[in-house]
C-alpha cells in the first residue's frame, strides 16, 4: 500500500476522534453556559434565529435541532430516529449525508488555506469561508431547513414576530428589503451568537481546571493524558494538540488540519445503502444522491469524499475555497474536529460510524494490524493475533456485517493511497516490525478516561454535581483506585 500524506504539513492524525452526533448513545454531560459580557444586538438576534424552527419549511427544524446545547451543539438522537445523519426537508423525511459536527469552539476556526496542506474553513469540508457563510446555508438546503431561496426564508422571518423584532433591532427596519442581504445578515447574526456567547466556548472542563491548579486528574486520567501526548502511543496531540496554538490562549484539541484516516463505511447512512428504509415508517427510501465524481471502477455508487465533494462551495460565498473535486489526492480528507466535549457528541467521525469512544480508539490502534478483509485468503481470526475488538476480525464490514472486500471501504480503492499510514497509531503491515497495537486494552481505558475530562461544565468547587457522561462512568475498579488515591472526581 502506498501512503499518501495530505499536504506537506506533518501534523497528522492519530487518535482522531471526529466529533458530532445524532444517534443516541448513553447519557449526556452538562455543558456550562456562563455568560460574561452582554451580547451584542446581533448576537441576541442570532440566538433567536438559531432556535426558531418556524424559519424552516417544515416548521419543525432550527439550527438548534441538529446542534443541541446539552450535547455540545451536536444532534439529538431522539430527533433522528437513530440515524447517524439528521433528518430534514419540507416534511422532515429527508436524510442528510453527514453527522452534524459540534459547533462548540468553531469560532476559533481559521479561514481555509491550502498553504502547507489544507487547513481551516467551515463545515467538515471547509467549503464555507466564514461562520456566517456556514450558518446561512442550512436555511436553503433541501434536506435541512429546505427553503427554496432567500425570499422564502425572509417570508418566514416576517411571520415570526419575536425573532423578527430582534433581527430588526440589530439590522434596522430596512433589513428585509433585499432577501439575499437579509439572509447574509441572518448568517452574521448567528455567527455573532456563536462567537460572543460563552456557551460555545466556556473552557470549563476538568482538564481546564486541572491546568489552572483547581482540579486534580485521577491517576487513570493522568496516564491517559500521557498516552494522548506520547508520540509512540496515542499520538493524539499530533492533530488534536493538548497545547495551545495560535488560534487561542487555550488548547483547542484540534489544529484545524485535514486528514484521510480511512474510517469504515457506515451502512446506516441511507445514501450509502441502496436497501435503506425510512427510520420513520420502514418504507424504502429513494435517496437523491448528490453528484460526486467517483472513479468509474469504484466499488460502490456513492461516496462522501470530503474536500472532493459531493458538496461544493456556495456560489455566493465569494471568499470560499476553490472547488477541489478534481484534486483527487484530497479525496476522502475531512477537517480534524476539536475533541473538547467529545464524550457527549456521539456518534463519531463524519459518517457517525462509531457510537462510543472505546470503539473509536480500538479501531485506531488496530486499523492496520491485520488485513482481515474478504480479499485476504488468510485472514487472522479475532482475538490474540487478530483483531481482539471485533468478532469478525475487522472493523471494515459490508452492508450485511461480514468482512468487506476492501479495508478502507468508505473510499474507492483507487484512492486508498490517500489514507494516512505514516503516523502513530497506524501500524500498516508494510512497516517492518509494526502491526502491534500501540495501546493495549488498559491503556485504551486510560485514554478514554482522559478524553472524558474534556467535557465542559465541571465545577471544581462542587465536583460531585458534575454529570458524568454515560460512557465516562468509571468502572468499579477505577473508582476504588481513585478513592484509594484520594483523587476521585
Amino acid at each position, binding site marked *: 500500500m*502506498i*501512503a499518501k*500524506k495530505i499536504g506537506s504539513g*506533518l*501534523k*497528522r492524525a492519530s487518535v482522531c476522534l471526529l466529533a458530532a452526533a445524532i444517534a443516541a448513545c448513553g447519557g449526556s454531560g452538562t455543558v456550562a453556559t456562563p455568560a460574561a459580557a452582554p451580547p451584542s444586538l446581533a448576537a441576541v438576534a442570532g440566538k433567536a434565529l438559531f432556535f426558531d424552527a418556524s424559519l424552516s419549511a417544515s416548521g419543525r427544524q432550527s439550527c438548534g435541532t441538529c446542534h443541541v446545547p446539552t450535547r455540545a451543539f451536536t444532534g439529538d438522537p431522539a430527533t433522528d430516529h437513530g440515524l447517524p445523519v439528521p433528518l430534514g426537508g419540507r416534511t422532515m423525511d429527508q436524510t442528510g449525508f453527514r453527522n452534524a459536527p459540534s459547533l462548540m469552539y468553531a469560532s476559533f476556526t481559521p479561514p481555509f488555506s491550502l498553504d502547507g496542506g489544507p487547513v481551516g474553513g467551515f463545515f467538515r469540508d471547509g467549503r464555507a469561508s466564514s461562520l456566517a457563510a456556514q450558518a446561512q446555508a442550512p436555511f436553503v438546503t433541501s434536506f435541512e431547513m429546505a427553503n427554496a431561496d432567500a425570499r422564502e426564508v425572509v417570508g418566514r422571518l416576517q411571520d415570526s414576530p419575536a425573532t423578527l423584532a430582534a433581527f430588526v433591532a440589530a439590522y434596522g427596519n430596512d433589513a428585509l428589503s433585499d432577501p439575499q442581504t437579509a439572509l447574509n445578515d441572518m448568517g452574521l447574526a448567528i455567527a455573532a451568537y456563536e462567537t460572543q456567547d460563552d456557551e460555545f466556548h466556556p*473552557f470549563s472542563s476538568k482538564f*481546564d481546571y486541572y*491546568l*489552572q*491548579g483547581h482540579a486534580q486528574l485521577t491517576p487513570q486520567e*493522568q*496516564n491517559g*493524558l*500521557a*498516552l*494522548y*501526548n*506520547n*508520540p*509512540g*502511543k496515542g*499520538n493524539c*496531540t*499530533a492533530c488534536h*494538540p*493538548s*497545547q*495551545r496554538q495560535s488560534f487561542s*490562549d*487555550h*488548547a483547542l484539541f484540534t489544529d484545524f488540519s485535514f486528514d484521510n484516516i480511512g474510517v469504515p463505511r457506515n451502512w446506516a447512512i441511507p445514501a450509502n445503502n441502496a436497501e435503506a428504509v425510512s427510520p420513520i415508517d420502514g418504507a424504502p427510501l429513494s435517496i437523491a444522491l448528490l453528484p460526486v465524481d467517483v472513479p468509474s471502477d469504484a466499488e460502490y455508487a456513492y461516496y462522501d469524499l470530503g474536500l472532493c465533494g459531493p458538496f461544493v462551495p456556495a456560489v455566493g460565498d465569494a471568499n470560499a475555497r476553490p472547488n477541489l473535486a478534481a484534486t483527487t489526492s484530497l479525496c476522502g480528507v475531512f477537517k480534524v474536529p476539536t475533541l473538547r466535549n467529545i464524550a457527549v457528541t456521539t456518534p463519531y467521525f463524519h459518517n457517525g460510524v462509531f457510537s462510543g469512544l472505546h470503539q473509536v480508539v480500538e479501531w485506531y490502534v488496530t486499523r492496520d494490524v491485520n488485513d482481515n478483509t474478504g480479499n485476504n485468503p488468510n485472514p487472522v481470526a479475532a482475538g490474540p493475533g487478530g483483531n481482539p475488538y471485533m468478532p469478525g476480525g475487522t472493523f471494515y464490514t459490508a452492508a450485511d456485517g461480514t468482512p468487506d472486500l476492501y479495508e478502507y471501504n468508505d473510499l474507492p480503492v483507487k484512492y486508498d493511497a490517500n489514507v494516512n*499510514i*505514516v*503516523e*502513530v497509531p497506524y501500524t500498516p503491515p*508494510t*512497516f*517492518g*516490525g*509494526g502491526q502491534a497495537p500501540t495501546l493495549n486494552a488498559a491503556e485504551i481505558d486510560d485514554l478514554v478516561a482522559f478524553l472524558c475530562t474534556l467535557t465542559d461544565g465541571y465545577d471544581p468547587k462542587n465536583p460531585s454535581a458534575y454529570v458524568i457522561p454515560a460512557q465516562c462512568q468509571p468502572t468499579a475498579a477505577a473508582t476504588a483506585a481513585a478513592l484509594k488515591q484520594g483523587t476521585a472526581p
Partner: protein
Amino acid sequence: MILDTTARTSGTPRSPCAAVLMATALLAAATASAADTPAKSSEQQQIDSLQQQLQAVQAQMKQLAEQNQALLQMLKPQVAASPAAPGSAAPPGNAAAAGGLTPPGNLAPPAAASVGAAPAANGTPVSGGAGFSNVKLWGYGEVYYTRPSRVPSRAEADLARAVFGIGYSFDSKTEFNSEFEVEHAVSSASDVGEFEVEQFYVDRQLADPVTVRAGLFLMPFGLLNEHHEPTNFYGVQRNFVETLIIPSTWREGGFNLHGDTPLGLSWNAGLITGFDLSKWDYAPEFPQYTTALDLEDKDVAPLQSTHQELALANAHNLSQYIALGYYGVPGLTVGGAIFTGNAVKVPAPPNAPILGDQRVTLWEGHVRWTPGKFDLSALYAHGSISNLGVANASNPGSPNPIPSDFYGYFLQAAYGVWEHGDYRLAPFVRWERYDMGSRYAGTTGPAVPAGLLPLSGTPGDYGYWPQNHDRVSTVGANFYTTPHVVLKADYQWFHVNSDFNRFDLGLGLNF
C-alpha cells in the same frame, strides 16, 4: 592608508604611518616656527638658510618614508599570524602549534583566551581608493561530507556555511564589524538553508583598557563560540558540548564592556537579550533528530531551540553575563563565564499563571595548554532553567519536556605531528559527554517512544527515537595546506545512540 594592527581587539592602533605623519607634522611646525624668527642677516642668507632647511626636511622625510616601508613589511606577516586573526592557521589559543607563525611567549591574549575578542575585527583592508581604506573584508566557510556508518543511506554532503564579514573603522577608536552567513547553500522559503546576521556591532574604545561594544555580538563563552572558524577547531564538526550546551554560534543583542590588563587577564561583562521558552515544542510528533548531523543542525538543544538571535527578540527581561580569562603564562589559557537572566516564560493557560520567573543560567570553565607540539584542552559547561514544574506537569507524556539541568564536558588532545612549509598535520582525540536533560521538574523526563516507529511523514521511514544524552569518542586529524585552508577527517563513536556513529570529511577555509 591606515594600517590596522588592532588584531583581535579594537585597541588603539599603533600604526607606524601615524607616527611618521606625526613626526612630519612636528617637523613642519618647527620649520614654520623657524621661518617666523626675525631675520638677523641679509635676504640672501635667509634664502640660503631656508633652502638648506628644506633639503634637510626632504632628506628626513625620505628617511622616514623608507623606515615606514620597512616597518610595514615587517608588520605584515605578524598581523597575518596574529593568534586571533581569522586568517591565522593557529588552532584556538595555540599560535605556536600553527607552524610557529606567532612568536612564542607572546602575551597578546590567545584567541580562545580573550573574552573581549572580536573575530570580525581582523579583515583585509580593501584597496582601490581612499574611500575604502577603512573598510575590511573577511570570510570563512566549511563543507562537510558525513556518513553514518550504520545507516549509510543517511550520508549527506553540505556546504554548511559560507560567511562574509565587513568591518569599518570610523576613527582610531570606533569600529564596526559584521558577519553575514548563508547556511546549507541555498536559502529560500522552500529550501533548508538560512541567511542570517551573525554579528553586527560597534566597538568604541573608552580608554586603553576598556572598550564598550553595542549591537549583536558573540558571547564570550567556551573555547569555540567566538572562534568558530573551521581552521580554529579540531574535527570536521564542532564539538557537541559547545553546540548542545553552549549554543554556538551563540550571539545576543545588547552591550558589553571588555578589556585586557597588562598581566594577561581579559574580562568582559554585558547586559543582553536572553532566551524565549515560549518557543519550546512540547509535542514533536517525530524525532527532532535522527542523525548526529541533525542533532547539531536542527536547534534541538535547550538553549539552541530558545535563543532569539535578535530577530524581533523579546527584550522585556534583559540578561547579564561576565567572562574572565587568563593568558599570562605563555601557552596556557584558563577561562570561565556565567550567564543568567529571566526567560520569556512558557505560555500558561488563561487564569493559570506560572508563578515566579523562569531563569536561565549557564556557566562554563575551560582550559587550554599547548606545551611543545601538544594542544590539550578541556571544558565543562552546565545550564539550568528554574521553575518548570507547572509547565512540565501540564504536558505528561511529552517526548520533549524542558530540562531543569543540562551539562556537558570534553577532554581533547592534539599533536602537531608533521610540518613542512605551510603544510601541517595535527591528529587529535576527543572524549565528550553531553546530557540535554539531566534533571526535570514536574515530570520524570522525556517519554521517549520505544520500538520501531515512524521517523517522519515519509512512508516507510521507520526507526528508533534517540536519547538526549550520550558519550562521544572522536578520532581524527586536521591537515592545513596553508594557514587558511584545512582538510579534516574524523570518526565518531556514540555510546548510547550508536546509530549516530559516523565518518566525516571536511574542508574549511578562513581569510
